[in-house]
Each structure stands twice: as structure tokens, then as C-alpha cells.
């Protein structure tokens, strides 16, 4: 629910507003709900408003989590144990 997309802040316009860019599509949105957003940062945009900044470090961490091997495998292939 609540279609929201991560877009890059390209340019500040009138106070509280900015132009964001998603894959080449540009739209002016409001930054009224987010503090200290700057050009180059990414924000989650919903119905013309930025709801939150995207935490780039956390994004990287999440992607790394996707690539982790399953826990059972980690248990099986202990450094001293026999590999399965």
C-alpha cells in the first residue's frame, strides 16, 4: 500500500521544495516532512512529498544480507567440522 519511490534530490527550488529525479523522470515535490535534505541525497516520495531520507549505508547492509548464505549451512560448515 502506499506507492512510494526512492528518488534523488536534484535541485532545491522554492523553500521547502525540490526537484527529484527517478531514472530520468523529474518532478517537483515538497520536503516539508524531512529535515536537512540536500542535493544528491535520496528520499522516499509519496503523493508529492518526501517522507524520509534513504539511509545509504543501511541499503548496502540490506543488500549484503540478501546475499548471505543460510544459517543452517553456516552451522554445518564449521571451520573444524567436516564440510557437508
Amino acid at each position: 500500500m502506499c506507492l512510494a519511490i526512492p528518488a534523488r534530490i536534484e535541485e532545491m527550488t522554492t523553500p521547502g521544495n525540490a526537484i527529484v529525479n527517478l531514472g530520468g523522470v523529474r518532478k517537483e515535490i515538497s520536503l516539508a516532512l524531512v529535515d536537512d535534505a540536500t542535493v544528491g541525497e535520496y528520499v522516499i516520495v509519496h503523493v508529492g512529498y518526501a517522507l524520509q531520507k534513504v539511509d545509504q549505508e543501511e541499503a548496502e547492509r540490506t543488500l549484503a544480507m540478501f546475499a548471505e548464505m543460510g544459517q543452517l549451512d553456516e552451522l554445518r560448515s564449521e571451520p573444524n567440522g567436516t564440510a557437508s
Partner: protein
Amino acid sequence: MNGEVKKGYVRALDIKNGRVDMSHGSGGRAMAQLIEELFAGAFDNEYLRQGNDGALLPTAGGRLVMATDAHVVSPLFFPGGDIGCLSVHGTINDVAVMGAKPLYLSASFILEEGFPLINLQRIVQSMAAAAREAGVPVVTGDTKVVEQGKADGVFITTTGVGVVMDGVDLSGANVRPGDVILISGSMGDHGMAIMSRRENLAFDVPIESDTAALHHLIAAMLETGAAIRCLRDPTRGGLATTLNEIAKQSLVGLTINEEAIPVKPVVAAACEFLGLDPLYVANEGKLIAICAAADAERLLAVMRAHPLAGDAAIIGAAHADPHHFVQMKTSFGGRRNVDWLAGEQLPRIC
């Protein structure tokens, strides 16, 4: 007034500031002048010059194909085109996908009272250019004017006639299990170009409509001798709707690969913004071709060699299916139905 009025002076249409009014549709002098100055000049060809109610055309050497389409697009002018060239391309394509060589077009205009003549001129000139470039003349037409509020500026209906060579038989009912599905290029360009100009959406998006006449591409495809079962242009409702139509007509199932379908990154991005699915977005310069598996690679090569189909791709195949479903293998490895479009595809917030 200084000097003499030249003999035979007729006050020309004030195209710059004039507007359509009810007299332009009444059949009188004003209408004749509108037709003469605006339409006839632009479309000029030997058949129009006959100047009669109907155009007298030479015998056509083969089975005839006729197609008609009304164009009510809004906005009238959009990135990459306008209602004028759209109406020419659209009907040429409808004739050409039947395997016919498009020969003649007719154009009927319903004009809204108050419509600026300068815009009408722009549209007519665009139509004339499209017709000239395609080599398909507009040989007859009609003009009516309706009261303000009863039309969206202008509605255009074009009808096209063409001839099918012997032995060519294209139909949505011809597809058999094992046949291969190809498309001529990226999906969703036209619909997103239009959507980005709709009131209250105001997205700045560098997408142009793909509106184009496909008859030369189709002629090249037919010349290969490939066993083409069916050609269709995925206009309203997009690729998904057209595939569902074909599946239903041919009583087969169709499965496509999401990863094989070309979508321009900026079109994908615009769809993300609005919550739309490119599979359901209209195209006006693309076609779907379904052919025998053995001929698919050869057909693809010919398509890719043509400027209008450089991104052509094989996207799937037909198979037996009593339910005639269209399914898609997602880029994820999952499977899902690609159903008919339920109503108009609208942007969503949820």
C-alpha cells in the same frame, strides 16, 4: 483605404487568430474556404483534385482490406507527435497488420466550435506530412462542427484501404502451439508520453511517443517468406491486452519472458512513479508478430535491420492451454498471469 482592391480579392482565412465557428460546418462558403485553404492545400493529390463527394479510385489488384479508427487523444499535441500524424499512422498500421499494402486514406474531422485555426493548421500539416512520407494519400474527407463543449478540440476518424497479395493470410486466429512471439521494440513509450502531459500529473519526462507508420517494416517482414501467423499493433491496453485478444482468438495459451521485453529505462521510471505497468501502456509505432518457430530467428534479423525495429526481440511462445491464459515468467523466476486490463489503467497512490 489607400490604393485599389485587387480584382478577385478574397479575404483569406485568418489562421493566426481565427477560430472554428458553426459556419465552417454548415456546407456554405465558409466551409468551402476552410476546406480549400486548410485541407485541400495540405493533402493535395490527384484524387482530391477530382473535387467530388467521393474519390474515384483505380481497380485494386487483389483482396481488399479496410480499417477505420477514431482518434480522440488528449492532449492533441504531445512529445513526438500529435493527433494528426497519429491518426494517419494508426490506420495505416491497422491495414498493414492485415498483410495489406495501404493504398488510400480518408479523413473526417469533427471540430469543436472555438477551436483555434492555427492549431487546426498544425494538425492538418502534420497529417499531410505523415501521409506524404508514408506514400499513402488522403483522397477524401469530411468536416463537421459541433457546439463548444461537445468535442475535445478536434476528433479525427481515418479510414484506410489496402490490397492483400495472394497467399498472405494473417489473423489472430492462426496461432498454433509452438509458434514464437516477437515484438518490434520497446513497450510503453506512447502511453507514458501522453500520461506525462495530462493535467495534474505534470511530470517532466523526456519520453517521446513512438507513433510511426509500420507498413514498410511489415512489407520487409512479409518478403522473407517466413510463416507469419499474425501481426498486431499493441495500442490501447498495451502488449498484455493484445496478447489476451490473440490467445482468445486462436484458443491457445501464450507465455512471455519478462526479461526479454524491452522497456526504456525512463519509461520504466515513469511507470514506477505512477504505479503503472508497462505491459498495459499503449504503443503507436510497434507491432507484435507471431510466426512459426523455425522462422523466428530469420524474421528477427530482418526486423532488427529496419530503423523502426532495431530493438526487436523474441519474447515468448504459444502452447496448448484450454484456458487460453497469457502468462509471464517474471525476472524472478516466478510465474504470473497477465490478465486483461480491467478498465482504464490509472495512476495509483496505494
